[in-house]
């Protein structure tokens, strides 16, 4: 059996060669713990993220939109499952992770603690929230942990439909009546800054997150800083907003020739921290709904297990 130092050296040799760590490899305990936390948080976000949009399935404006929305929400459930499965390769169980979520000991993305007040919010979520998620997730397809990277490849393939259907839904509104266009603008006004906050706290200055980024980059879990990804998202999204004919609610938004990027007003990070801590408009509602769904489904899980056990008995 190799010594600790030798095993660490073998781990870092793989990381430095941009190789992939697989489940049964030796890995530093802190690397494993960081991955469990991140993948679990990501999985929780996918399944909690079904709620704001699920809220509109029964009220979608047409059968076409309803079928699309159902398919999207079903995809998000699938994303959750891929990610819980990836986390389980690190020696935790899905049940354990759900318990931690229900006990508020693990988090999910703060964005899902905002309400979907109008149909236009469904379009704005697809365009902005899924758009921001894609920006975050594409680099994760090259994450150093194999199962996580592979899950992200599947997820990213599916996300592009999510973003396009949202954009199309908004485009339909902006080309509709003045009231429909106003509804689309109102949705953008409310979702813009929370979407920017999805990239997390800034990497520098007094609100910097306190060091996850640097360590995660050393481990090849993260490839870009929060601020780099946020800038990338803004640069992609501003021209899209012009196609929609909508105005991003930022008077200081302008192209900076010198930097080759848009300058923009950062989101309110104090608000982000408040929402993460549990004080967003919908935190309590989202978690209560999740726990109720889990408890209401218990009899189904038990019945299926009992049926499987009985069939085995009969066969034996």
């Amino acid at each position: 059996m190799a010594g600790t130092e030798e095993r660490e050296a073998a781990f870092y040799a793989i990381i430095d060669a941009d190789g992939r760590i697989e489940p049964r490899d030796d890995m530093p305990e802190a690397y494993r713990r960081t991955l469990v936390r991140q993948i679990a948080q990501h999985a929780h976000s996918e399944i909690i993220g079904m709620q704001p949009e699920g809220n509109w399935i029964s009220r979608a404006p047409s059968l076409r939109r309803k079928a699309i929305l159902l398919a999207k929400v079903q995809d998000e459930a699938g994303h959750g499952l891929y990610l819980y499965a990836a986390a389980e390769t690190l020696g935790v169980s899905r049940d354990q992770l759900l318990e931690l979520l229900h006990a508020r000991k693990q988090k999910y993305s703060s964005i899902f603690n905002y309400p979907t007040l109008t149909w236009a919010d469904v379009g704005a979520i697809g365009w902005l929230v899924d758009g921001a998620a894609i920006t975050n997730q594409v680099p994760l397809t090259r994450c150093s942990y194999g199962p996580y990277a592979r899950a992200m490849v599947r997820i990213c393939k599916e996300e592009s439909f999510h973003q396009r259907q949202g954009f199309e839904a908004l485009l339909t509104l902006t080309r509709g009546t003045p009231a429909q266009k106003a509804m689309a603008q109102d949705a953008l006004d409310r979702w813009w800054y929370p979407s920017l906050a999805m990239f997390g706290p800034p990497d520098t200055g007094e609100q910097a997150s306190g060091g996850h980024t640097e360590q995660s980059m050393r481990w090849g879990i993260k490839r870009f800083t929060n601020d780099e990804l946020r800038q990338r998202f803004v640069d992609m999204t501003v021209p899209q907003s012009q196609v929609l004919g909508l105005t991003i609610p930022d008077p200081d938004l302008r192209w900076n020739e010198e930097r080759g990027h848009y300058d923009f007003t950062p989101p309110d990070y104090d608000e982000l921290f408040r929402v993460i801590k549990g004080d967003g408009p919908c935190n309590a509602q989202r978690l209560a709904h999740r726990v109720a769904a889990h408890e209401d489904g218990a009899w189904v899980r038990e019945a299926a297990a009992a049926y499987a056990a009985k069939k085995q008995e009969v066969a034996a």
Partner: protein
Amino acid sequence: MTSQWPLWEVFVRAKRGLSHIHVGSLHAPDAAMAVRNARDVYTRRGEGVSIWVVPSDQITASSPDEKDAFFDPAGDKVYRHPTFYEVPAEAKHL
């Protein structure tokens, strides 16, 4: 209820003529449900024409850590590859 449904590994054949390839895992109470769940989780966009599910605990793996030693015997046998042999350019179809 604390006991979790068992874990299954899922293999999908993308189209006729190709092997089944491992795509991930899932929980299900029995094999029939595992196949159904695998269809919903891993083939929502026509990614497969056939699915295998295998209980995860039935898989035997080569070595506890995916280290090289087990595969070392192949390492020094370059003569197993066609490029090891030098033949004149005039000798065609070799």
